């Protein structure tokens, strides 16, 4: 983890839809919080009855705010426990440990125009973008693709904001992504955050429409990717072997036995946890390593990637 640990207190918690819970977190000692910029996320340590989850959530609070951090968490049906814990266990007054905010998805300041495409809860990083753009006068458009019954869920954050369109799966309401991407002026930056299938489709369409790669930015939801078959990992420097269960990540297993491993996003995006792989074949699930790096088979991101070979040897 980069930086020091923060101790936060739940100041307010409310259901904004059957599957979405909004949390307002303040410093437990009543002091000021470190400021975070648009696109930043917060890593929460969620101590459940059987295991500890460390999940990253986008901050939707106003960029620079120091009085409170706000997040919105969707309850995932196939949750490994993190989102269920937030929905079922957390109550006002609880104290949580968190890392300092990190930011892997900041808006590009030199952009002429910002085009944001969100899928459902993927709107969360863009809520902080909107708050930022409202001050800077930037040219932008936000397209939210969601279920019809959720079209008003985010209204409290979108009220009074221009440039926001909402789309859902019905005739006349679907987003024509190819037409949207083709119509953008030079100097536009594209940001996409949503389910993996939507992200992949938008990235593919942008490449086909001739978008320069440096102008296309994507944030993936990481946690759903990390489960799979159980396997074993030997940590060569520490001299210990650990069993990685079906529903825990390699990183979580490493942390469970008390070995220190660096990490930041826990979603395969930032590369902070990249670790030399001494033996074994990795099942790469990150968005960080290049094709060439994967080819060499000598690096792994333990936050999301797993074993294809039954046993891995890490230089950790």
């Amino acid at each position: 983890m980069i930086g020091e640990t923060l101790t936060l207190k739940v100041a307010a918690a409310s259901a904004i839809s059957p599957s979405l819970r909004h949390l307002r977190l303040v410093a437990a000692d009543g002091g000021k919080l470190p400021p975070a910029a648009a696109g930043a996320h917060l890593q929460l340590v969620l101590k459940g009855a059987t295991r500890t989850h460390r999940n990253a959530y986008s901050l939707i609070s106003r960029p620079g705010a120091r009085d409170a951090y706000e997040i919105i968490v969707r309850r995932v049906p196939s949750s490994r426990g993190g989102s269920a814990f937030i929905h079922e266990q957390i109550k006002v007054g609880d104290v949580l440990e968190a890392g300092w905010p990190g930011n892997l998805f900041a808006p590009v300041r030199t952009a002429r125009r910002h085009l944001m495409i969100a899928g459902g809860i993927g709107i969360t990083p863009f809520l902080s973008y909107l708050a930022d753009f409202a001050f800077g006068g930037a040219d932008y458009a936000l397209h939210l693709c969601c279920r019809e019954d959720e079209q008003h869920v985010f209204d409290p954050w979108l009220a009074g904001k221009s440039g926001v369109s909402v789309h859902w799966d019905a005739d006349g309401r679907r987003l024509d992504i190819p037409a949207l991407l083709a119509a953008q002026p030079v100097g536009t930056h594209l940001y996409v955050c949503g389910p993996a299938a939507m992200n992949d489709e938008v990235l593919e369409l942008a490449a086909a429409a001739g978008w320069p790669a440096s102008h296309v930015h994507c944030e993936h939801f990481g946690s759903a990717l990390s489960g799979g078959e159980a396997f074993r990992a030997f940590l060569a420097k520490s001299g210990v072997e650990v069993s990685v269960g079906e529903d825990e990540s390699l990183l979580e297993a490493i942390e469970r036995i008390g070995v220190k491993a660096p990490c930041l996003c826990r979603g395969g995006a930032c590369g902070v946890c990249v670790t030399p792989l001494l033996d074994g074949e990795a099942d790469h699930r990150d968005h960080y390593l290049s094709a060439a790096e994967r080819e060499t088979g000598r690096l792994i991101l333990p936050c999301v990637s797993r074993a294809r070979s039954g046993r891995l040897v890490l230089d950790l």
Partner: protein
Amino acid sequence: MLHSDIKSRPTYTQLEPDLSGSQHLLIVEGDTVLPGRLDSLAGTFAPVEENLHTWLVGTQAGGLGLGKVWRLPEVADVVDAFACATRGYGIGDRLYVQGTEPFLWSVAKAAAIIGFSAEQIHLHHAGSLRRRVWCTHCHTVTENVTTSIASCAGCHRHLLVRDHFSRRLGAFMGVMVDAEAPGEVPAVEESFA
């Protein structure tokens, strides 16, 4: 002189259409076109001809159909054309430029100002090696330098023309050559004819 150990020294490639682009704009400095070369460019860009515009700049530009052709008297008109186009270019567009280095970088800078990214701009050096030189002492730009040591148009110091290149200025660095021993100026060579 197009290759150097100095990392900032740009390298250039042959022009060919980037097929992932949507609209293609080819800008050619007319007097850098060798006989027959425009024919060969026309062949290279034939696959994108339907979405191709060609701007021929200067007097000697030959008349060949490379998509829609527009003639411009000089590079300043290219810069003006970009500066006046507020919404005219798309994120999928590609720009290809052929000419001397001052021409290439004048066009590239004007395009960058309206939002073109480096990945959308392809540069091909042709014609003279003459350089635009920026004086590190008085910050004056001296145009059309062909010699290894040149007199600064601003402060008249003798400047050693280095390979250090600024993409922002589109110019090479010039530093006073006789600062240590005033008056001792090495032999001047015609290096960038």
